[in-house]
């Protein structure tokens, strides 16, 4: 459904993306994780045509993306990393404007707008200007703005930053429900537990290169399903594929330790650290 082919992005002499090839099949819940500056936002912005690739191509449903390709744009809902609301519009005006841009007459979208506002607890702020919302509220508004036209593909760049724990769970529910309708959801996050809770496929990128791209459980299997965490000058992690070996190792330690299941966070740490050491 989404296909990046050898996408490279150079800023002057810094390479932000280094020949990325990636395909995201229809109906996948796809998590893109990586440290700050890895190139996640750049990749998504190229998909959204906000940036042009220095070389390589991006296809959505076999159609090449570009600024005037309205057909592709209609299929996508996008929540950018930074706030992009019009400061002169109210919440309701923002939603009305979005529905008009996506060719939904207000009569038809009206109930949907109310439903979406209810969902994220913004209904009482319906007439507030977007500047009068808190940071988290703004982000939630951007999420429902992207949902207004019920796109086949939902792209979210760190959607849960600044959203409180309750609403984050609510957001997860929205995304899960959306995915269950057969839609493709692709998001980036720094909350690895979020990536683990949601994604069917996780792509780990660092310094513009894909390190790993697989199911979360496969990635965990790659470093070992059990982790021993202990402190020796600094916190150390050892991963084992059998719980028995982990216990044997843990018992040999003189310091305190924790023995637990490996998480995606361990995978993230292991792979990015390995790369730094290299």
């Amino acid at each position, binding site marked *: 459904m989404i296909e990046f082919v050898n996408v490279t992005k150079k800023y002057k002499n810094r390479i932000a993306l280094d020949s990325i090839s990636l395909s995201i099949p229809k109906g996948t819940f796809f998590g893109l994780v990586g440290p700050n500056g890895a190139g996640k936002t750049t990749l998504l912005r190229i998909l959204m*045509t906000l*940036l042009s690739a220095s070389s390589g191509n991006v296809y959505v449903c076999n159609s090449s993306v570009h*600024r*005037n390709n309205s057909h592709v744009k209609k299929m996508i809902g996008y929540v950018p990393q930074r706030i*992009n609301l*019009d400061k002169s519009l109210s919440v309701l005006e923002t939603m009305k*404007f*979005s529905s*008009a*841009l996506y060719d939904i007459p207000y009569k038809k979208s009206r109930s949907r707008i109310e439903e979406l506002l209810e969902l994220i607890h913004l209904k009482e702020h319906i007439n507030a200007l977007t500047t009068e919302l808190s940071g988290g509220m703004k982000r939630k508004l951007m999420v429902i703005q992207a949902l207004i036209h019920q796109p086949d593909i939902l792209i979210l760049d760190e959607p849960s930053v600044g959203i409180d724990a309750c609403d984050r769970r609510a957001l997860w529910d929205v995304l899960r429900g959306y995915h269950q309708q057969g839609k493709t959801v692709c998001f980036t996050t720094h909350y690895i537990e979020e990536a683990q809770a949601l994604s069917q496929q996780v792509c780990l990128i660092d310094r513009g290169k894909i390190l790993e791209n697989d199911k979360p459980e496969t990635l965990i299997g790659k470093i070992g399903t059990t982790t021993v965490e202990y402190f020796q000058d600094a916190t150390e992690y050892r991963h084992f594929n059998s719980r028995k070996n982990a216990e044997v190792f843990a018992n040999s330690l003189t310091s305190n330790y924790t023995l637990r299941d490996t998480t995606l966070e361990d995978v993230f740490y292991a792979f990015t650290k390995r790369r730094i050491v290299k």
Partner: protein
Amino acid sequence: MKVHLVIQREFNFFKKRYIKITVAALISPLLYLIAFGWGLGKSVTLNSRPYMDFVLPGIIALTGMYTSYSAIALRVNTMRVHEHSFEYFLVAPIRITDLVFGHLVAGMFRGMYAVILIIISTMLFGIPIPITPAFIGICILNTAVFASLGYFAAVTIDNHYDMNNFSSFVITPMVFLCSTFFSLESLPGILRQSISYLPLSQVSNSLRCIVYGSPVSPFSYLILTSYLLVFIIAGMKMSKKDMV
């Protein structure tokens, strides 16, 4: 076609701040009118006509230019660089031509609004202006040229500081030099020639012709239309560049 959505959104913006916009649109032209028209104009004649007849078309021209340019330049640059709300347009299914023409029409509206205000105020002070179809045509063309220049500058320049510089280096000199307050006759040859081809010179001279009762040169329409086309095409081209 979604031009109307862009225009609607800009109209909404206008509606919410029309008092500020109205006052801002009136202040500098009225000051020019007071200083150069009533202040200087009473005692000065130019080509044996009152200076007021000379300066008024210039002030109307620069009002249309300045308002349509700055309305769009400021708004689009702010949306693009500061609010990032311009990105929402770019990811939505709307064509670049709709974006360009939507903002162009919005800028023309803002420019004409200011022009009409200033014409009404001079009429209130008892200065008659011959509002002919040619007069209206030139005024509209003037706002179109500078709204499209404003759009082009706003999508090309990536920060507010340089936007300000562009205005200081391009717009402000035009305000004073382009046959607005003094006749280009007094300038040396090459300088006069080159300034006379600038769009604002064409507008002030054409409006002055109308006020003096002589016909507008078709050449002026041609020059202004060419500027308009160039700015529109350049604006479309630059709308495709990377966002900051």
